[in-house]
Each structure stands twice: as C-alpha cells, then as structure tokens.
C-alpha cells in the first residue's frame, strides 16, 4: 500500500500540472464526442461558451504573429487568429466542395497580402497547384480571383508536373520572405506528403515567416505537422442585399463557408459560419439561422460518407492520439 501511495501522489501532481498547462493553452484532440467529457473535466475551451472580450483583447496583443479573422469562435479556437507562421491545413471532404475551400483559402491569403501591403510591400501570393487538382476542380480563373479581392499583379501560379516538384517549389518559395502566403494545393492523401515533408514545410515556414496553406482536396484527416487543420464545407450564401438595403431572397450574396476547426489547441472542434466580403476584403461571421433557406431545402437524400471502394472500419476505441496515415 505504501508503495502505491507515492506514485499516486506523483500522478496527481502531474495531472494537476497538466491541467494548469492546458487551461492556459488547452491542448487539443479531434473529435466532437469528447466535448462533454472534456467539459466535465474542466476544459471548457469551446469558444461559444467563453466571454469574447478576453479573447480578442488580450490574445491578439500578446501574439503579434496571428491574424484575427474577425470571427470570435474561430479566432479563440486558433488562440487569437490564424497563425502567420507555419503550416495550416485546409481540407475539403469532396472535390465538388473545392470552390468553398479555394474561396476561404484565398480569403486568408488576401488578408495576409493586405497586411503586407499595409507595410508598403508587394506581398505576392504563390499558388502551387498539382496538375490533377487543377484538372479536377478547375484552373484558377483570373477574373474571378480579381473579383474576390486578389491583386493579380501580385499573384503567381505554379503548375508543377508532380508532387515532388510542387514540394520543391513550395520549399524554395519559403526561402524568400517576399511572399505573403504560399498555397499548396494537393489532391487526396499522397504518400509522398507525410509527416517528414509537412515538418519540413512547417520549419521552413517558421523560419521565413511566410504562412503555408495546404489546400487538400478530397482528403481525409491525417496526422501531419500542421498546427491547424480546418475542414471547409459549403454553406448557403446570405441573401443578396440591394443598394437600397432590401434583401433579395432569391439572389446569392457573398461567398459563405462553414469552417470546422478540426485540429487546434482548443479541446474540441469548433465550427463557425462565415462569409467573405470581397469589397471590404474581410470575413464576417454569419448566423446560419438567419439565412433563410429556400422552402425545398429539406434534403431527402442522406449524405453518404466519402469513402468509396473500402469498408468503413469500426470506430476507434478510446482516445485517438494520432490519425493513421490515410495514404
């Protein structure tokens, strides 16, 4: 009995220390089913339940290398905003959702660019797109990009032949701190982009201070070195507002996204609806309830899982510490 007492004490002390650490910067796990468990344990990191001022007020001033999106729930989950250094992964479950993810990522890139421009720099954006990704989801379209708020005079597009070239170009670009953002678009979970490669990107990005956005089309969640992984889903746009202030319910307004922060320092996933205003070049939070969906919106189809050609495995038991390689 006496032998057990000391370890038990140590364990309690350690647990206490961990709890203290995590209360300061709540460390994360990934799936929503632990939300209640986590909150029972005292980690109430879910942004909705927190008062806003202490989020936006302190965190932002303390950390200069984050970019607040102006959406409190997301900003809090990302401890202040989008990290301006390092690798962030943005993924969509299906190729047909690629438009939403592209818009969201370009919105982030435009924010980074605006920050650079405020400092009097050119701040070009580099968009590296794997050949297959461009063929499946469409090539970048200059007019549309320009209308979204991207300065085409400061945008470079790269279409490498394979992933190896894409990674090389991304790493080379991260060696030059002129870029305001590097977007690396890939398809699925290629085996050649594993932990080691994402770690290289992460370190290079931390070194040069250029954020990398890994835009993953039709990819599964996978262990990587990215500190942040966001899942983007399409969301119905708010009605179009006419110049006189009336809403045109049949019109389609600003681009809207449903963003789920899958991997953050927050305890549980956080989601938010937001829209991008290309005129003001900023995100606005969007209340999904306020968006009047059309009458026939009741979906008679069940949304099937994206896995095709392989059986869905049994749900994992216990805590998932790291995802298996999806590639």
């Amino acid at each position: 009995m006496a032998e057990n007492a000391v370890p038990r004490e140590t364990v309690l002390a350690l647990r206490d220390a961990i709890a203290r650490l995590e209360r300061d910067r709540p460390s994360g796990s990934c799936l929503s089913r632990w939300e209640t468990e986590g909150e029972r344990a005292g980690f109430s990191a879910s942004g909705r339940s927190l008062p806003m001022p202490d989020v936006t007020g302190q965190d932002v001033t303390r950390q200069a290398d984050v970019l607040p999106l102006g959406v409190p729930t997301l900003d809090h989950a990302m401890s202040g905003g989008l990290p301006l250094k390092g690798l962030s992964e943005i993924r969509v479950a299906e190729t047909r959702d690629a438009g939403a993810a592209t818009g969201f990522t370009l919105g982030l890139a435009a924010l980074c660019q605006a920050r650079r421009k405020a400092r009097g720099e050119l701040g070009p954006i580099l968009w590296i797109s794997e050949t297959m990704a461009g063929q499946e989801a469409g090539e970048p379209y200059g007019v549309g990009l320009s209308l979204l708020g991207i300065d085409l005079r400061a945008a470079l597009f790269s279409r490498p032949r394979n992933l190896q070239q894409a990674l090389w170009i991304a790493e080379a670009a991260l060696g030059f701190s002129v870029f305001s953002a590097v977007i690396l678009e890939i398809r699925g979970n290629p085996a050649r982009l594993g932990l080691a490669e994402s770690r290289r990107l992460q370190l290079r990005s931390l070194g040069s201070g250029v954020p990398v956005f890994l835009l993953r089309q039709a990819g599964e969640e996978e262990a990587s070195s990215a500190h942040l992984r966001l899942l983007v889903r399409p969301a119905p746009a708010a009605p179009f507002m006419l110049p006189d202030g009336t809403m045109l319910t049949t019109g389609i307004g600003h681009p809207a996204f449903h963003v789920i922060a899958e991997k953050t320092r927050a305890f549980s996933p956080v989601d938010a609806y937001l829209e991008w205003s290309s005129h003001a070049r900023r995100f606005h939070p969007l209340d999904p309830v306020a968006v009047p969906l059309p009458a026939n919106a009741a979906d008679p189809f069940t949304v099937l899982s994206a896995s095709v050609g392989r059986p869905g495995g049994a749900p994992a038991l216990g805590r998932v510490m790291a995802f298996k390689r999806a590639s």
Partner: protein
Amino acid sequence: MRIVALDSVADRLRLKRGQGVAEARAMHPQLDVLPADPTADQAFLSALADWCDRYTPLVAYAGADGLALDITGCTHLHGGEKALLDDVLSRLFQLGVEARGAIAASPGLAWALARFSTARLSDDSVIEAGEEAAALGPLPVTALRLPETLTDTLIRLGLTHVADLMEAPRAALARRFGPLVFLRLDQALGHDDEPLSPRRPVAELSVERRLISPVSGEDDILGLALQLAAGLKTTLEERGEGGRQFELLLFRVDGKVFRLLAGTSSPLRDPQRIAALYKERLAAVHDDLDAGFGFEILRLCVLKVEPIKSVQDDFSGRPDQSRALADFTDRVIARFGDEVLSIAVLAASHIPERAASLQPAGDAVLPARKTLQAEEWPVMPVRPLRLLTHPERVEVPAADVPDGAPERFFWRRTAYRVARAEGPERIAAEWWIDGEDAPTRDYFRIEDETGRRFWMFRNGLFQRERMHPDWFMHGIFA
C-alpha cells in the same frame, strides 16, 4: 548499290565513288562494306562542330563532309596558325577521326586545299597572303566547287587544272559557261567576298577555362561556373549591361559537348546569382549529364544582354523585394522549365475562357507588369474562382421554363437540386472568331441545397439556335 564514300585504304586500291558494290567486291573480295547513314553522318558532323567551338565561336558547315572555322583573331590563343592546325588535326586523330585541314585567306581556297592538296606537311597547308594563285593553280578544276556537269565539260575541253582556267581568256569562257566558274575562282583567290554562315549565333560575351586535369563533380563545375561568372562581371559592368540568357558549355574529354541554357527574368550580372541558376540547371539535368572521364574546358557565354539599371542597396537591411522575387522565378524556371510558373493575364473579351489566361511568368517581372485589371471593367460581372478547362456536360432532366434555370441536374454522376439560381447572363459568341453559327450561351449561377455554387450555361438559345440545347458546367464559385 553504289559506293558513296571511301576510306584512304580503299582509295589506294583505286576504287571510285559511284562504282557498283558488286564490281568492287569482284575486284577486292576482302572489301568491308557498310550501309550509308546520312543522318548519322550529319549528327557526327554536328558533334564535331560542337567540339570545334573550342577554337572559335564561328564554326560553319562546309558541305556534308567538312567544317569551316573562321579563326580570325583566335590564332594567337593557340600559338599561331600552324600550331592551331596541328592541334586540331592531332586531337582529331586521337579521337579516331581521319581529317585533313588547311588554312587560307578565303574559305574557297581552304576547302580546295583540304580536299585536293597533295601536301604531306602541315607547313604547306597554311597559305600566306599572296600565295593563293600559286597554291590553287596545280589543283584540279574539281576543287572549284562547281556543279558536276560543268566540271565534266571543263575537263573534256582540256581545262583540267585551275591554272588552265586562270590563263584562259575570261570573256569567252564566261560567255560559254556562265558567271559561276569565275565567281568560284575569284572567291577562292580572295578577289570576291564569301561570308561563312556560322551554325550558332555568336555569343555577346564568353569566358572560358581550360583545365589541366578534367573535372567531373557537380560541385567542381559549380565552383568553376562561379569563377567564370565573376570573370564576366567586370565586362558587363563596363558595358552597363546584364545577361538575360546564359549558356554554359562543358567540353568533355572525349569530344562530347554539353550546352546548358539558362534564362533569367531580369538582366543579371551578380556571379552568385548566375551560379545559383546553374545549380538548379545541373540538378535538373542531373541524369542526362554524363560526365564520363570529366570535362576539360568550361565556357560561360552570355547570349542575350540587356541594359541594367544599377541599384544601390539601402541601409534597412531588408532584401530587395523585386530582386528576391526575380531570384525565385529564375530558380524555379531554371529547374523545371518555363511553363511551370505563370501569371494571370486578363484580356478584353466577353467569352469567359478568353477573358483570362495563365501565361508563363518568365519574361515579366511582377511589379512592372501592366495588365488589365478587373476593376477597370465597366460592369462588374459575376465570375467563378475556378474555371474548368473543358466545360463538362451536365444532364438536366427538365426545367420548369424551357429557357429558365434548371431545377435539378446530374454532374459527374451525382444528382444535385438547385436551391437558388441567378441568371441568365447571355453571352453571345464572338462571330469574328467562332463563326456566325456559334451558339449563344446563357450562364446561370446556381446554388445547390448544401450551398455549393456552380456556374453553368445552356449552349444555344432554346428552339432558336438549338432544338434542345445542352447544359455545361463551366466553373465553380467560392
């Protein structure tokens, strides 16, 4: 089958070109006959011409079996004319090539002497100024590069040697045989000008390094390239220019020559950056660059120059923005080629796929670029973020209104229900390009129930241009 070429042994056996192979075999049963391969001959000659670049940048083909080198101003580098000729011939001999050569003031005379001279010593193959007539006189008229029929006629008339022609009355012969005979004669004697046309444009500047012991390692080559680039710097600075296109020539010991081209997006003279370009180039051609027993001569040429504006570094310590960007594009292009990096260029067209395109970024330095901006358009259209390269066919089962938006559709084997639609935006074809029958497109911006936004068009006006127009998916909105 006829004989087209002979080696010197066969020549001594008194075989002739044009003779039948069967006849020659009957005379000499031990004859070794190889089928002629003009393409391989041409490739070999071209490789030899590359090899000859070590003597002069002006190397031209002289017929299908010879090379003409313009060595004006190059001889002192090799210890004089005779030494140069000896060097060429002995090196070629070591490479296993049986070659003959001559140096003369005119290409015609050198051509004639190299082929028809009976001189055994190289002393006699270098013709000083003033000795042309004496050297050309004893040669047969075949040495004048005249058409075969003309030569035959001359020989039948007894004018077998060039000296006969030189002594004959000009006017009568010219009337009979046309002006070509005396044109060739004058060219050979140097009375008439005959320019050589070199195979490659002459480089603006070039620096070379001859090595005593050959190098083969990539690092050695890069180090030497850096030294060569440093040698270019002062000349470029004096001229106030920078290079836009560089060529690194690697002369391998066994005679093969590698040429590595590297372009830049802005004029360049910094040795480090030129060497950095070649670092990428070498990495890119890694497998194709077979160093063999090493390279003995390295030469760096500047093929294209442009005036450069000198820039003073400021004291802020921050790297220059546009220079860093140019550096990045150069490195990527040097490694993967021109088409890997592109910029979006807008054009004044209503047809969506013509209004914007991705163009190679190689030539344009980003901030200096002047392009059309979407803000300059009179009306802000609604355009997608991504455009499918080829519009994809969409199945539309039925529409409430025949020329309205669809209610449901199938795209890539998936059913979609339309929640909201905006449109149509009617875009007529550009008849001056597509012809008058090209259908008008009605574009709709469509949002499905989940919130995906698509850009679809109906190809042709209902019942006017097409009976049942097809639908196409053209783009994806954010």
